[in-house]
């Protein structure tokens, strides 16, 4: 009953056992309690992970990596399209023109470069229509951030119906790019679309999309990887005077992936923008309790400062926001002087996209349920309650679970033993119900042999027994 079919949950975040030092930083930060420590290594519970990347940010040794496709894959196609999100242009100094950045991407080996946000004006219209058509459901939640969509699926299953079933800008632009080039007579099997991603969540959205059979995108390139390559090309190109021909995005489009990017443009009613995953969780709890009134549209982003704070963005998120806001202003001021029909521009009306913009149903996949059988779930709930009351509520994590409550849950789900609690061990030792050998074995099974190796202290360090009034220093007694 406990064994979920883990295979169905694809994740872009991978834990490298050979590097992991079993420090538990990731376990303690994970907002969905999806990490445990066992045998001295972090272990991911695939059914709870939403790919928000908080673990990646705190890992002190780089043991958490983000999977990526081999860059050479682009050469499997004769027509190679790069989809560049505007946050990528925000990684470079103000002095570097966004057109020069896009041109450098093309120079790297692509035949075409599209900006992800080209689809924004079209999408914004559809959002407003959708909000009008779905008035009774409040608040409607943007599907923009894949980590948020997955968070709702696992932690807020009752809110799944609030998710707007429209595709993200990247999918719209990808569909448009493919259609445009196919219409020009290019063999569709020869077109490869590659998306430059700021985060792990967007990778998962491509590799195992929610509400879609298969993504229109053929591969992903991690932003930090591309950044280094483009930086080099830009340095070589310094001084070259060709002006790359890219139709400037509207200011709205440039800022769409930033906080308030969407919320500020929903015309059908009051909207709210919330970023950072813990803020999002706090707010969704309230939405789920029906305590939030009068909000029609919710923009929710897992990262602080939204995509400017994506885990694969090399730049500082505040600087990126600043740069993009400047780019937006400049863009709006020069747009008028460009010819209306220009490369890749997607109009507000577009029949083809209109027919392809909808997402299928999003299903809940609750991590909250204790058992499929309700009577069984009730028994488990009672046991968790009782066990939790025996635990000290220190949430120290030494048991290998992120909190006392989660250890109680793990015990009831047969994933852990109550003896893993260090306080329970001390109580049992006092009652002669556990000897030191057993407690050491348990601790080793959680934290590995070497963290508890009895010979690991250097000879010169003798641990002194303190007498009253003595001070302890790491040199020994003073």
């Amino acid at each position, binding site marked *: 009953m406990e064994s979920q079919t883990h295979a169905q949950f694809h994740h872009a975040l991978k834990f490298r056992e050979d590097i992991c030092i079993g420090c538990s930083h990731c376990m303690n930060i994970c907002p969905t309690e999806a990490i445990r420590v066992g045998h001295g290594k972090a272990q991911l519970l695939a059914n709870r992970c939403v790919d928000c990347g908080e673990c990646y940010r705190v890992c002190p040794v780089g043991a958490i990596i983000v999977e990526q496709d081999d860059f050479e894959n682009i050469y499997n196609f004769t027509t190679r399209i790069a989809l560049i999100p505007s946050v990528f242009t925000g990684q470079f100094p103000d002095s570097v023109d966004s057109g020069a950045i896009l041109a450098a991407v093309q120079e790297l080996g692509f035949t075409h470069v599209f900006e992800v946000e080209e689809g924004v004006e079209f999408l914004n219209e559809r959002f407003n229509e959708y909000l009008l058509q779905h008035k009774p459901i409040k608040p409607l939640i943007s599907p923009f951030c894949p980590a948020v969509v997955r968070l709702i699926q696992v932690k807020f299953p009752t809110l799944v119906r609030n998710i707007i079933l429209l595709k993200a800008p990247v999918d719209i632009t990808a569909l448009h790019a493919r259609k445009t080039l196919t219409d020009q007579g290019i063999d569709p099997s020869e077109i490869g679309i590659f998306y430059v991603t700021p985060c792990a969540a967007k990778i998962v959205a491509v590799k195992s999309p929610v509400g879609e059979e298969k993504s229109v995108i053929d591969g992903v390139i991690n932003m930090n990887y591309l950044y280094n390559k483009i930086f080099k090309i830009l340095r070589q190109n310094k001084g070259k005077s060709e002006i790359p021909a890219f139709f400037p995005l509207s200011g709205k489009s440039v800022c769409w992936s930033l906080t308030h990017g969407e919320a500020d443009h929903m015309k059908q009613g009051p909207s709210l923008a919330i970023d950072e995953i813990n803020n999002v969780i706090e707010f969704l709890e309230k939405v789920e309790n029906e305590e939030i009134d009068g909000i029609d549209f919710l923009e929710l982003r897992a990262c602080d400062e939204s995509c400017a704070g994506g885990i694969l963005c090399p730049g500082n998120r505040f600087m990126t926001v600043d740069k993009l806001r400047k780019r937006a202003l400049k863009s709006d001021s020069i747009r008028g002087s460009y010819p209306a029909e220009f490369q890749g521009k997607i109009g507000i009306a577009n029949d083809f996209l209109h027919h392809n913009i909808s997402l299928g149903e999003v299903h809940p996949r609750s991590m909250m*349920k204790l058992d499929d059988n309700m009577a069984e779930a009730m028994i488990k709930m009672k046991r968790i309650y009782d066990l939790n009351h025996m635990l000290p509520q220190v949430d120290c994590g030494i048991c290998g679970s992120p909190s006392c409550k989660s250890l109680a849950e793990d015990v009831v789900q047969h994933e852990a033993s109550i003896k893993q609690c260090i306080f329970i061990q001390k109580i049992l030792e006092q009652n002669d119900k556990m000897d030191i050998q057993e407690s050491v074995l348990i601790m080793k099974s959680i934290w590995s042999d070497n963290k508890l190796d009895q010979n690991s202290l250097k000879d010169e360090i003798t641990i002194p027994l303190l007498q009253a009034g003595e001070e302890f220093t790491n040199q020994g007694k003073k």
Partner: protein
Amino acid sequence: MSTGKMHFEYQVEGGNFSAAGFPSSQVKKTLKQLNVDGNVIRRTVVALYEAEVNIVAHAYNGIISVDIDTEKITILLKDEGPGIADIKKAMEIGYSTATPEVREMGFGAGMGLSNMKTNADHLNITSEVGKGTIVEIINYFHQ
């Protein structure tokens, strides 16, 4: 406790709006862990919250008792308060005796009871003027 049944109780303090919402939040958590259908959870939470706020807004104090078995959730809200003289009238949309202070808190639209009715499979209200009110809500897990 016999298997397949659960019971919870919560105290409600009249006038304390800042504490309102705790019982519905706890009930929500429990129903999620029991894997109850999302729609049933939502309806239950709405009905319970409205009933709780009515005690906070209109009565002096009350007790909420919640019973869950594998078929249904039964919620009983008993309060000590002024009672409702004309229940039929109170059920009408827009009817409210809420004080200006209560309205200031964002309540008092006279929507609560009708909202409860639409979100409960079974709603039963009995009241004695000058003593108090008893509200019973039952929602079934499998329609």
